[in-house]
């Protein structure tokens, strides 16, 4: 009989072997799809060509300075949103609302940029950062209040507020913020150059990367060294113990959700300022949701979040890049999905082991 047994601690070998096996299985699954699909050629393709698709993906994401820079561009919002949700997750607060907090941060930053176009960059950019973080933070605070005082489930409220934020931005670009010179198209006026975050050389890699790196270090130190970090961890692991220890849970819920939202808001600010350079709909293709996967894969470790974001960014950049050699988008999405499926699924084996016993005894 086979049964599952919880591991007391993940085995060190497993931590290396399990993800490696997962990635291998995912690539194998993708390869089978590619082989069956045959890239539209009637004769089908060889396994060598399947391999070429994978190397093509790697090449698109890392193979050139440009690919690498674009992978980083894609990773920046994931890093920031991932760091944001990870603080909340650490306290077992399920903030699914990074997407909405991202949009509200972008909204507030765009409001500054559009309302005060004459500000010099040295005033404009800090103002955009501050309002963006404040607005994202307040958006995180809205579901935190009923959660802290009434115990209302924050998973649903944070999720619902995403739609409110997205529709609010849509309302603005279709209505009051519509560019009068835009022939009624749903775009705001472009920002002045002062409202655009500086970028690295000729690339689109912007200052948001520095925000993410600094925040990751700050979070790592805060969670490890400060009293607040200790409280967050204890509350997350055992609210009852925390209460006995005299920790203020209500205050911490509010604080953590505010910070969580503020960091996602900063991501929105960076994206609207450096990349879009105007307000528009579809600013985020789901960064706030992907950030949840990022935070989990990284086990809430700030530095691992940076890395995982980078890898997920690469997966998307590389995915588009191989399309021009005839790989349909659907297959690319399937490979991406398979990777996440196997890697997340592999996590299970880090926590449980399969034990074969002689007796029929069901204990799961």
């Amino acid at each position, binding site marked *: 009989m086979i049964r599952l047994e919880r591991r007391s601690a993940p085995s060190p070998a497993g931590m*290396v072997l399990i993800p490696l096996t997962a990635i291998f299985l995912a690539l194998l699954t993708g390869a089978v799809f590619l082989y069956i699909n045959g890239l539209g050629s009637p004769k089908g393709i060889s396994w060598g060509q399947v391999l070429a698709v994978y190397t093509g993906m790697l090449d698109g994401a890392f193979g050139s300075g440009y690919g690498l820079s674009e992978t980083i561009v894609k990773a920046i919002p994931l890093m920031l949103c991932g760091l944001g949700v990870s603080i909340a997750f650490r306290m077992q607060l399920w903030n699914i609302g990074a997407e909405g907090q991202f949009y509200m941060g972008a909204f507030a930053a765009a409001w500054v940029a559009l309302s005060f176009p004459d500000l010099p960059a040295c005033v404009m950019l800090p103002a955009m950062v501050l309002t963006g973080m404040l607005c994202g933070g307040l958006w995180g605070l809205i579901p935190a209040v009923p959660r802290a005082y009434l115990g209302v489930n924050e998973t649903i409220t944070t999720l619902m507020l995403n739609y409110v934020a997205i529709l609010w931005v849509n309302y603005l670009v279709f209505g009051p913020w519509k560019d009068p010179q835009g022939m009624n198209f749903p775009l705001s006026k472009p920002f002045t150059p002062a409202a655009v975050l500086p970028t690295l050389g000729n690339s689109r890699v912007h200052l948001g990367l520095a925000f993410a790196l600094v925040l990751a270090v700050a979070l790592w130190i805060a969670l490890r060294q400060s009293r607040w970090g200790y409280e967050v961890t204890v509350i997350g692991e055992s609210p009852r113990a925390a209460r006995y220890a005299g920790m203020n849970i209500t205050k911490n819920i509010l604080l953590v959700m505010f910070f969580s939202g503020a960091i996602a808001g900063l991501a929105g600010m960076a994206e609207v300022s450096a990349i879009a350079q105007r307000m528009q709909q*579809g600013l985020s293709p789901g960064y706030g949701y992907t950030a949840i996967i990022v935070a989990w894969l990284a086990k809430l470790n700030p530095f691992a979040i940076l890395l995982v974001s980078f890898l997920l960014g690469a997966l998307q950049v590389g995915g588009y890049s191989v399309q021009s*050699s005839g790989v349909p*988008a659907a297959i690319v999405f399937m490979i991406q999905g398979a990777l996440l499926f196997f890697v997340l699924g592999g996590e299970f084996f880090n926590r449980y082991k399969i034990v074969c016993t002689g007796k029929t005894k069901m204990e799961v």
Partner: protein
Amino acid sequence: MKRIISFVFMLVFVVALVGCGGEKPKAQEDKKEPAAKEKLKVAFIYVGPVGDGGWSYAHDQGRKYLEQQMPDVETSYIESVPEGADSERVLTELVEKGNKIIFATSFGYMDSVIKVAQKYPDVKFLHCSGYKTAENVGTYFGRMYQARYLTGIIAGKTTKSNTIGYVAAFPIPEVIRGINAFTLGVRSVNPNAKVKVVWTNTWYDPAAEKEAAKSLLEAGADVITQHQDTPGPQQAAEEKGKFSIGYNSDMSKMAPKAVMTSAVWNWGPYYVETVKAIKEGTWKSSQYWGPMSDKIVDLAPYGPMVPEDVKKLVEAKKQEILEGKFDVFTGPIKDQTGKERVAAGQKMTDAEMLSFDWFVEGVDGTIPK
């Protein structure tokens, strides 16, 4: 300790990825290049998948036509490219891969096209449905409103409930123009009919499009048309046993009992002409807005449910449009409040049509302001 191990592992993994990624493919490129050099490389980017059965599908049919007509041209495409930060990268990559002509087939690529075009002055960019041009950026579109008007005649003749449902993507001039032209067509044969509009705020979302059509059917519509990327609304009409008019490509295959005809895009000839002009060096940046007589827009074959007399009526009007004897937006045209916006005998200018932000009389719906 465990964290450090996982961290180190990830680092090793990334370095490994960079390492493998950097070397192998370059060797392959070198081998391929001599053969590829002779062909002119043309690339397309699509907002949806080529299998959407509508907008992107129609463009891809055009791409295939181009490849068929010009054997010395090599085409490639990238599908499902979101209209945001991603499009700029995808465009740049296509240029880096040696494409000399790029067709960007969705409105939201506009700013990205302009930005990338500035960096690569020797590459020609053609942007569908936008309004920004540059030395190496032209725009192209077709006067779909002419076909819309004709399909309106069929809808007006068909409806029994005098309510026609219109599933519409975004309240932008292109879509509003289509709704207005369609409504004028409907009211030219049936002045009592109303066209009910529902916004989906998405180009491509088969489920949302279908749901919107269902809500219109429940509100009493017995003919459904649409300005979306997929045949979802047509399928909703088919399921309810009602009629429908397709858009983008001939949708009769997806809903054979419902689709009376479709207002279709026929991009192929335009793509061939443009690529030829660029190759011969006669191309100049322009804002091309092709009329029905250029065949860029057309009607798909009629379904068996369309009566002969209606077909005749539509064909006669089509002839007038083709010969330039009839313009859809000719006054008197009233808006929803009954106010006359175009005086009798006057014609709307292209600039007015391209910035449409009001509905004609007979439209039941609002434009968010």
